[in-house]
């Protein structure tokens, strides 16, 4: 599903050059639940951003869902992300000015769909994460766990083949983190969604199919 070949990422400023990733070769199979671990600053999030086509590698090539991501225009990239990838962030990144239902509908705004279809799909996604009773709340009225469940609903509403989760339980206590993890496992198991998750938590990583470890930008396991 995801094929990374010789991926390198170098950040350059006028005086400093930082190698964030070097020679990453990674294949993620369809329906796999992969976790990425490593110390802070080892390049986990950078790798995830590259997989999500939010960032470009300095060298190397990416194939996602049988498409070569190189040389896509801004518009084509946007369309590809919208159809294929769902994101879950550690800090949720919900839009506080919009109600829960509107937040979940967001990816569908960039597709051809009617308001009725959007609402229907958003309600179904919220049902899956157990938040159908919070549709009219604003994010600021929710707990951290509830916010992350809204973020998951937003990530799955467009039925993407891939979900990229950047420390989805990082800001949650263990009970809430387990709830969120259970939802992700269920999604992977029941719907066959490919999931790549960055985490610091060994226990969470153990629940996934495979673990990849990074150290100083290189793959060590």
């Amino acid at each position, binding site marked *: 599903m995801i094929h990374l070949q010789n991926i390198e990422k170098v950040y350059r400023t006028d005086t400093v050059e930082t190698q964030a990733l070097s020679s990453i070769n990674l294949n993620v199979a369809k329906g796999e639940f992969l976790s990425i671990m490593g110390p802070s600053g080892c390049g986990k999030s950078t790798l995830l*951003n590259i997989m*999500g086509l*939010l*960032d470009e590698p300095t060298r190397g090539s990416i194939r996602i869902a049988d498409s070569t991501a190189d040389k896509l225009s*801004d*518009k084509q*990239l*946007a*369309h590809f*992300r*919208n*159809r294929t990838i*769902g*994101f879950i*962030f550690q*800090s949720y*990144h*919900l*839009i506080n*000015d*919009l109600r829960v239902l*509107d937040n979940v*509908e*967001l*990816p569908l*705004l*960039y*597709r051809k769909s009617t*308001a009725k279809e959007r609402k229907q799909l958003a309600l179904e996604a919220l049902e899956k994460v157990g938040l159908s009773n919070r549709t009219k709340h604003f994010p600021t009225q929710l707990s951290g766990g509830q916010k992350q469940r809204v973020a998951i609903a*937003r990530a799955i509403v*467009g039925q993407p083949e891939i979900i990229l989760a950047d420390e989805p339980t990082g800001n949650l206590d263990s009970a809430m983190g387990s709830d969120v993890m259970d939802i992700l496992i269920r999604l992977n198991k029941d719907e066959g969604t490919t999931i790549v998750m960055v985490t610091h938590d060994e226990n969470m990583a153990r629940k996934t199919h495979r673990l990849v470890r990074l150290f100083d930008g290189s793959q060590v396991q």
Partner: protein
Amino acid sequence: MLKNYFKIAIAVLKRRKFFTFISLFGISFSLTIIMVLTAFSDHLVDSSYPDAHRSRNLYISMMRLTGEKHGFSQNGPPSFYFLDHYVKKMKTPEKVAITSFHQPTNTYINNKKLTIDQKFTDDTFWEVLDFEFLEGKPYTRQQIDNAERVAVISENVRRKYFGDEPSVTGRYIETDNIRYRVSGVVKSVPITQFATYGDMYLPHTLGKRDPQDKGLNGDYFAILQGKDASSLPAMAAEYDDIIRRLPIDTSRYDKISSRADKYVASYTRLFIGNQDDSGLNRLLLYVGLVLLFFLLLPTLNLVNINTSRIMERSSEIAVRKAFGASSGTLALQFIVENLILTVIGGLIGVVLSFIVLAIWNNSGALEDVYLYLNYKVLIISLLVCLVFGLMSGVYPAWRMSRLHVVTALKTY
């Protein structure tokens, strides 16, 4: 999609109330000034009572005599003699009206001074212009030729001089110690209508001028009325021809210049132009600069506020990009949000304009000058709103659409 943009726009407006107030104040205040100015210029420029046919009229209000050899130059309105002797005989206009500029005189009512502006006219004046007679009728050619002391007065003068009397035709009115018999009363004309304004209209034969004087300069002007607007070029050409062939008193001057202008050009030539330049382009430049100034201030203000707001909304921008919004879609969203803000500001501006115009119309600051917010002004104002929205939204939207997703997510 638009509903979502609208929700966001309203939420953003509510979130930063002070900035919203500053933005809306800037837009609505500027718009109010523009709309009031437009209403005023509309009042000055458009055909209005009693000069209802400006599109087929030309105006001759200035004549310049220059004698370069003698260092002589005289610039002023033409004389009655010139207009009567040359212009009246033109073939292309259907009618030629001659009238003086208004001249103030004084009278006293109950020991209170009343200034009455007199205007001396010929009989065609009443045919070319659509005066509304509230009572009586205009003086006739016969009365003019006989230099009868008859007058047509304005409604305002009737009220101030005669009080609430229902009819004053045939009554006498005295000003500068001369008595005139009232021949008719017309609806008042505001002072801003220089071609037609007067408190008291009198036969030109009562004017203080020497009948033997054949000088070209004086204090009269003419209104040439054509059959329709297409007659104007021929009328202007015939007048130019008259000026070219006018006998020149070479002992004093060697050049005569005068033009038959459309209404606005005659206005600008009178106040800011000269014989070679009607001043219209200069006026348009000044008006353009003023408009630009009033447009630019709130626009720059909005650009500034909007650009700083981008950083506040970097998380939202990043999320939208991550979930499939292209840079173009985001830029469009921001422009739409900005248009919503400016339309709200515009609507407040329209309401404020109504209030300001109502205050003006009730203040009597300029007698009989009533300003109205007509559809033309409204459309101009809404266009101005769109210009505000686009001008102040495009640059911040461009900046926003270029924001890198990863950087934006990290700054949250």
